[in-house]
C-alpha cells in the first residue's frame, strides 16, 4: 500500500470483514510516532495563535513526518482544557485545516490535564477492538488566547433580550444592566468547589507529605538539565516541528542552577508562612502548545511502511475526594497506579522509565512519598505495607513539564510520544520488552495513568 493513501484503504473502501465482533480477537495498538510544536510560555511566541492554529500545526508536522497527506485516518481525537465555545468541533476543524483527507472523522475530548493521555487510551482501545486501524491522539491548550466570558448577569440579560419582541420590553430588559455586569469573567485554575487554585491545593499536599524545598528544587533542576541534554542529543529531531519562530520549549532554562532556584520566593502556600516551599521554579508556568501521537494496528503500520515504537498496554483513571480534604487535589495517580499494576501483575520494579507529569515538583514527590509510606499503603491502598519506591534515575529522564512547560491537554501527547521513542531505543530488558509508566494528575481530583511497552 502506498503511504500516500493513493491505494489501499481509499476513501470509500471498506476493511475486509474478519469475524463478528464477539469473536474478533483483541489486537495490539502501537505508537508509530508523534509530533508536537515547541511549548511556549503564555504571553510569548504563540500569544496570537488559537488552539485550532496550534493543533493544526502539530497535525501538519505529523502528516509531513509520516507521509499521511490525503490519508483517511480512522479517527482523530484531541481536546483543550481552556476552550472557546466557538471551538465546539475543535479537532474536526483542525483536521479540515490539515493535509489529512477531509473524510477523516474526529471528536473532542476534555478531561482537564489528562485529556491528551485519555485520547491515547480511548483511541488505542478502538484499535485493539478492531473498530479502527489508525488514529491520531492529541491535545492543545492556550493560556494566552484563553476564552473570556461575559458575566452571568450580562449573559442573562442578553439571553432575555433575545427572547422579548417589542422595543419597550427590550428597554425594560436593558434597564436591568448594572456596571458590575460589564466586568468580564476570565478563566482561572481555581477549583470550583473549593475556590483554591491548583497551586494552593498542591501547597497543602506538599506540606502534608513534608516535601522539602530542596527536594522540589532538585527535581526542577533535573527536569531542565535532562530536557536540555535531550535537545542537545537530537532527541526531539523527530518528535517536534518548530512553530512561529520557536524551535525549543521557551520555558527551558539550560543554564539554571540549584543556587538560582533556591533564590526564588514562594508563590503558593502563603498561608503556611515560612513553611511555604513552592516557587515559580518548582511549579509549571502557564503554557501554550499542542501535541499529537500517531497510533495504529500493527498491520496498518506495516502496510504503510511506518515504524512501530511501542504498544499501549493498559490504562487506568482514578479520582480522589479532595473537596472534603480526604486526599490532595492532585493525588489521584497515587491510587490509579497501584490498581493498574495489580491488574497487570506488575510492580514498580518492572519498569524502565517513569514519566510522572510535573504539574509541580511537589506533586511528583508527594506521590512518590505516598507510595513509600507504610500507613498510606495499608490504610488507603489496602496493601500490607508501602506500595514501593522507584529508581529515581528512571524518572523523567528527558525532562518533563517543569522544564518543557505544561499546555494542559498537550502534555499527554508529549509524554506518550517521547516515552514510546525511549522504549524503542531501549528495546528489551532482561528478556522482556522495555516498559514505561505514564502518570498524569488532573483538575477535579482526577488522574490517568498508563503502561507502554517496547515492541
Amino acid at each position, binding site marked *: 500500500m502506498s*503511504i*500516500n493513501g493513493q491505494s489501499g484503504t481509499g476513501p470509500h473502501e471498506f476493511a475486509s470483514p474478519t469475524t463478528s465482533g464477539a469473536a474478533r480477537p483483541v489486537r495490539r495498538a502501537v505508537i508509530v510516532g508523534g509530533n508536537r510544536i515547541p511549548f511556549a510560555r503564555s504571553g510569548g511566541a504563540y500569544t496570537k495563535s488559537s488552539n485550532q492554529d496550534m493543533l493544526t*500545526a502539530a497535525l*501538519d*508536522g505529523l*502528516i*509531513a*513526518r*509520516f*507521509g499521511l*497527506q*490525503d490519508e483517511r485516518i480512522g479517527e482523530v481525537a484531541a481536546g483543550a482544557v481552556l476552550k472557546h465555545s466557538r471551538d465546539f468541533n475543535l479537532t474536526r476543524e483542525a483536521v479540515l485545516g490539515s*493535509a489529512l483527507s477531509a473524510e477523516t472523522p474526529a471528536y473532542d475530548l476534555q478531561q482537564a490535564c489528562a485529556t491528551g493521555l485519555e485520547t491515547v487510551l480511548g483511541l488505542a482501545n478502538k484499535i485493539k477492538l478492531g473498530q479502527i486501524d489508525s488514529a491520531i491522539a492529541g491535545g492543545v491548550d492556550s493560556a494566552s488566547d484563553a476564552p473570556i466570558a461575559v458575566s452571568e448577569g450580562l449573559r442573562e440579560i442578553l439571553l432575555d433580550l433575545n427572547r422579548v419582541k417589542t422595543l419597550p420590553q427590550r428597554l425594560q430588559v436593558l434597564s436591568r444592566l448594572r456596571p458590575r455586569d460589564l466586568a468580564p469573567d476570565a478563566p482561572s485554575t481555581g477549583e470550583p468547589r473549593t475556590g483554591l487554585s491548583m497551586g494552593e491545593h498542591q501547597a497543602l499536599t506538599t506540606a502534608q507529605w513534608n516535601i522539602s524545598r530542596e527536594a522540589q528544587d532538585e527535581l526542577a533542576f533535573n527536569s531542565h538539565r535532562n530536557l536540555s541534554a535531550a535537545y542537545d542529543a*537530537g532527541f*526531539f*529531531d*523527530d518528535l*517536534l*516541528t*518548530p*512553530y*512561529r519562530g520557536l*524551535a525549543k520549549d521557551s520555558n527551558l532554562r539550560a543554564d539554571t542552577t540549584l543556587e538560582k532556584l533556591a533564590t526564588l520566593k514562594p508563590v503558593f502556600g502563603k498561608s503556611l508562612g515560612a513553611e511555604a516551599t513552592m516557587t515559580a521554579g518548582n511549579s509549571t508556568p502557564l503554557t501554550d502548545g499542542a501535541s499529537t501521537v500517531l497510533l495504529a494496528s500493527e498491520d496498518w503500520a506495516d502496510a504503510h*511502511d*511506518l*515504524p512501530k515504537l511501542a504498544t499501549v498496554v493498559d490504562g487506568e483513571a482514578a479520582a480522589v475526594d479532595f473537596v472534603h480534604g480526604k486526599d490532595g487535589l492532585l493525588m489521584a495517580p497515587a491510587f490509579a497506579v497501584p490498581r493498574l499494576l495489580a491488574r497487570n501483575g506488575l510492580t514498580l520494579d518492572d519498569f524502565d522509565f517513569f514519566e510522572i507529569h510535573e504539574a509541580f515538583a511537589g506533586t511528583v514527590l508527594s506521590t512518590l512519598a505516598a507510595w513509600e509510606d507504610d500507613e498510606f499503603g495499608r490504610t488507603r491502598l489496602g496493601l500490607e505495607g508501602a506500595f514501593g519506591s522507584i529508581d529515581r534515575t528512571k524518572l523523567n529522564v528527558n525532562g518533563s513539564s517543569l522544564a518543557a512547560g505544561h499546555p494542559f491537554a498537550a502534555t499527554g501527547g508529549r509524554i506518550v510520544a517521547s516515552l514510546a521513542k525511549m522504549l524503542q531505543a531501549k528495546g528489551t530488558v532482561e528478556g522482556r520488552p522495555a516498559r514505561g509508566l505514564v502518570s498524569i494528575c488532573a483538575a477535579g481530583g482526577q488522574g490517568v495513568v498508563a503502561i507502554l511497552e517496547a515492541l
Partner: protein
Amino acid sequence: MTDKYTTLVNQGVGKNIAKRLGLPQPAVLRRFKPGQPLVTGPVLVQGNTAGADELAAKLLSWDLDVRRHAVPREKLGAIILVLDELTRPEDLEKPVLSAAASLRDLGPSARVISISRPAAETASPAQSAARQGVDGFLRSLAKELRAGATANGIVLAEGVQSTSPSALAALRFFLSGRSAFVDGQFLTVATEQGHLPPDFEKPLAGKVAVVTGAARGIGAAIARTLHRDGATLVLVDIPASGDHLAAVANEVRGTALQLDISSADAGQRIIDHAVQRHGRLDIVIHNAGITRDKLLANMDHGRWTSVLNINIAAQLRINEALLASEHFRNSPRIVSVASTSGIAGNRGQTNYAASKGGVMGMVRASAPLLAANGGTINAVAPGFIETDMTARIPFAVREVGRRLNSLQQGGQPSDVAEAIAFLASDAAGGINGDVLRICGQNLVGA
C-alpha cells in the same frame, strides 16, 4: 515570477521608454509547464552529416516540425547546428553562415543548439582547433541572441551517437522551457548510457529522491519540480526549519526528515529513512548550503569552518555512506548545487567559493565511483537566482547582479530545479562528472 523592472519594460509606455533610452530590455522567459509543446515553432536542423540526418529523423518521430533547409521569413522555434564531423576550422563556415541567415527568423525564447565533439579527444591540431572553435562561436552567439532566445551546446564524446539517450535528453532539455535560464553552456555526453522515459512528462516516475535544504528557496523548488516529474520525495532540512519543511512535504506529498546534514550519521539516517519508508533510494540532491560572507582579512574560524563543513564536508561524508550502501546501486544519481562563485570567485565569499569549488572537484572525482554502478554525479552552478537570500542584497548591488548576464535578469529557483531534475533522470545516464551553469550566461566566470 519576473522582477518589477522586467514587467515594466515588457508593456506599454515602459517598453517604449526603455527602447528609446537604450535600457536593458529583459524578456519574459518561456518556462516549462506540463503539457507545453517542446519548442515554439519549426526546428531547423543544419549540417550534412549522418548524425544530422539521424537526429532530424528522430525529431520528426517526436512530431516536431523539422526543416533541413530554411524557409524564408518563417518564424523558427530552434536551430540545431550539427557539427559532429568537423575536421578543420574551415568546416565551420558553411553551417554557421547558413544558420546566420535564419537568426532573424528566431521567435521569442527560441533556441540555438550546437552538437559537436570534444577538442581534447583528437590528436589532430586542425580538428581540435575546429572543435574548440565551436566553444567560442556558440558562447558569442548566445550573447547576440535577443528576446529570451538562448544558445547552448552538446558535446558528444568520440563514438557517442547524436541519437544516444543522453544526447536526445540533453537536446530536449535545451529545446524546452526547462532550460530557460541556461545560456551559453555546454553539456558533455560521455557515454551512450541512460534510457529515455516512457513518459516525457513523468521522467522520474517510480524514483525515490532525497533533497537536502528543502525547506525554502531553491530546495523547495527542487522538491516541487521532482514531484511534478513523478518522484517520491524525502525532504531534509535542519530541525529549526522543520515548520517550513513540513509545509513543503505536505505540498509535494513527501516525508519530512529533520536532520543536520553535518552530523556524523546523516548519510546513514537518510538511507534508512528512504529505504524504510519508501522502499528504495535512487536520487540524492545536495542542495543544503549556507553563506557566512566576510572579506578574508576579517574571516574567522567559525565563518570559515561552518561554510566548508556544511557546503562540502557534509556532502563528502554523505556520499561515502551512499557509495557504501547496497541500497544505492541501481543507476543512482547525485546532483550537487555548486555556484558561479566557485567558478568566477566573488568578493567576500572566499569561504563559500572554496566550498563550491570543492563541490565541483568532488563531482569530477566521484564520477568514476558512481559509474561503477551505472550511476552519475553532476553539479549545477547557479548564478543570480531570485530567492529570499538575494532579495536581501542592497538594491543597487542586486540590480547589477541581476542584469549582468545575456538574459539581463535573475533566474528563478525553478530554473535551477529543472536542470537538477534533468540531470537526475534516467535519460541523463551518459552525463557524468559535469557542471552545468544556470546563470543566463553571467558575464563573470567561464
